């Protein structure tokens, strides 16, 4: 008896023999294959390497390898003055520079214990929320691309361009702003800025709905994301998830509400969490929906800020900036809600130096990504792309 041919599929092997018998063998221990995904891979959104152990199409283990974009943020901080760290914070989460600056400025101000003019607070919130929308637009657009939908990406970048234009008008830069300084702002906003922002809000509101429908009412998109990569709420908390990731798991936790800073307590906005009607709570689609719905809330915040902001003639946004920034001895952990979650800074000051003794950035992406190993276990290889996309990592913030 001679074997003619054999074919294998996962744990099943079929052998055809020359006496017309077919032998089907099940539960064979097949060899697992190591598949390296990245560091150069379009769906890893930067230089992230995932080493996947695969059994056929099923992932048994996916281990992230980081550090390709490590730029020694914390070491740099020990060698420069407090205000000089602001441009470095831009380069953490380069898609949401304003938010990173905001978090850093808040932290140092907490240590300095200084009062910030109200107008500055409102301008900060406006630019931070604009940047949040811009960041979510990139997240949603590239997520579509990951799953094969190209059109939403173009819509997203068209509208993001308007935001970047506005921020450039205010700060002079498109992405790396150096605009929110400790104790104030680099410049006051241009005279027509608020009017233009108001026009953008009116323009963008229907576009946001259109964009949301474009993806969430697309059957292919829903099938690729619904029920994939489910993270239960308790595990998400234990993993230290924050931001849209945590809210996607159904935990109503937003630092703007739960640990309020700046003028957020005065503003009226909702914290969207999935209710399980459109998606399975905790899956990739939930995380996407949270981002899509959050844009509307940001628009609401911006509108309220425009109407509440005090107009001051000849306002000097640098009036509250101390001449020399030298905080008293002590330590502080300050944080803010970034588009990707909680960005925290731990700063230790010895009271003598104008440089921090230690400045640590707690990055939201770093923490969110650490759950990758558990999240991808037992998933199909194509779904891995859906999961990474839904985490919405920015490697600049992961590696710092």
């Amino acid at each position: 008896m001679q074997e003619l041919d054999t074919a294998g599929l996962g744990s099943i092997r079929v052998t055809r023999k020359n006496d017309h018998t077919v032998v089907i063998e099940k539960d064979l221990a097949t060899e697992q294959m190591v598949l390296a995904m990245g560091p150069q891979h379009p769906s890893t959104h930067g230089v992230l390497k995932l080493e996947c152990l695969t059994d056929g199409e099923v992932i048994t283990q996916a281990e992230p390898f980081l550090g390709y974009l490590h730029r020694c943020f914390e070491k740099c901080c020990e060698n420069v003055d407090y205000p000089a760290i602001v441009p470095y914070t831009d380069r953490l989460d380069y898609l949401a520079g304003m938010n990173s600056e905001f978090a850093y400025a808040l932290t140092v101000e907490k240590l300095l214990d200084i009062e910030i003019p109200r107008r500055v607070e409102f301008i900060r919130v406006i630019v931070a929320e604009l940047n949040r929308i811009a960041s979510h637009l990139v997240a949603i657009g590239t997520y579509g691309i990951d799953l094969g939908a190209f059109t939403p990406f173009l819509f997203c970048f068209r509208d993001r361009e308007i935001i970047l234009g506005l921020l450039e008008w205010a700060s002079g830069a498109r992405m790396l702003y150096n605009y929110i300084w400790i104790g104030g702002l680099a410049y006051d906003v241009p005279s027509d800025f608020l009017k233009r922002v108001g026009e953008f809000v009116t323009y963008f509101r229907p576009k946001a709905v259109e964009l949301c429908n474009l993806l969430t009412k697309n059957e292919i998109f829903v099938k690729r994301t619904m029920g994939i990569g489910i993270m239960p709420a308790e595990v998400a908390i234990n993993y230290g998830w924050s931001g849209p990731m945590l809210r996607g798991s159904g935990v109503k936790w937003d630092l703007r509400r739960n640990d309020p800073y700046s003028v957020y307590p005065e503003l009226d906005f909702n914290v969207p969490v999935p209710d399980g009607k459109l998606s399975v709570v905790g899956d990739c689609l939930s995380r996407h929906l949270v981002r899509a719905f959050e844009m509307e809330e940001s628009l609401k915040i911006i509108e309220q800020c425009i109407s509440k902001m005090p107009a001051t003639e000849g306002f000097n946004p640098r009036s509250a900036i101390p001449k020399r920034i030298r905080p008293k001895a002590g330590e502080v952990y300050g944080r803010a809600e970034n588009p990707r979650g909680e960005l925290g800074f731990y700063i230790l000051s010895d009271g003598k130096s104008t440089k921090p003794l230690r400045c640590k950035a707690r990055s939201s992406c770093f923490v969110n990504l650490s759950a990758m190993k558990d999240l991808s276990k037992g998933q199909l290889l194509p779904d891995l792309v859906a999961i990474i996309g839904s985490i919405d990592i920015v490697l600049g913030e992961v590696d710092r």
Partner: protein
Amino acid sequence: MEEGKVFSQSVQQSAAAYAIIHEKFGAAVSAFDANETMPFFEVLDARLWRDIALFMRDHAKLKFNYMACITGMDYQAEEKLGIVCNLESLSLFNHKLAVKVKCDRDGGFIPSVACVWHTANWHEREAYDMFGMLFTGHPDFRRILCPDDWEGFPLRKDYKVQESYHGIKVPY
């Protein structure tokens, strides 16, 4: 806490949480440092850190279920390394508390709390990567940001960068 001084509500909440921990562990934890920016206490007996962590997570009145951050530290004056952990109770209580754990500068070790909070897993790896303290009982203990064969621990105050790495000149 000093008598007669007025503390904000958040510091009072932290102090109440600390009192429960102090009652259980007594001399193993230091006095409560009631500063407004980051109230903390220190674990004096580092070997008990994991027990304290579990107690803090599971006690019905504490429920510190969320670990925000672990910061590696180099306390050069004291000849020690250490970590600062920022803990809080997410959506259950409002208290926040920071915990400091220190260990010897050379070959010192701290019990890993990666089994208590998953967040600690990567943060402890990062602290080791930058400062070189060991975490005992860590499930996956290796460097995370620097390459495996990098020499020294970059964030130590006495760090000297290596001359060359695989034939590439390092200091520029």
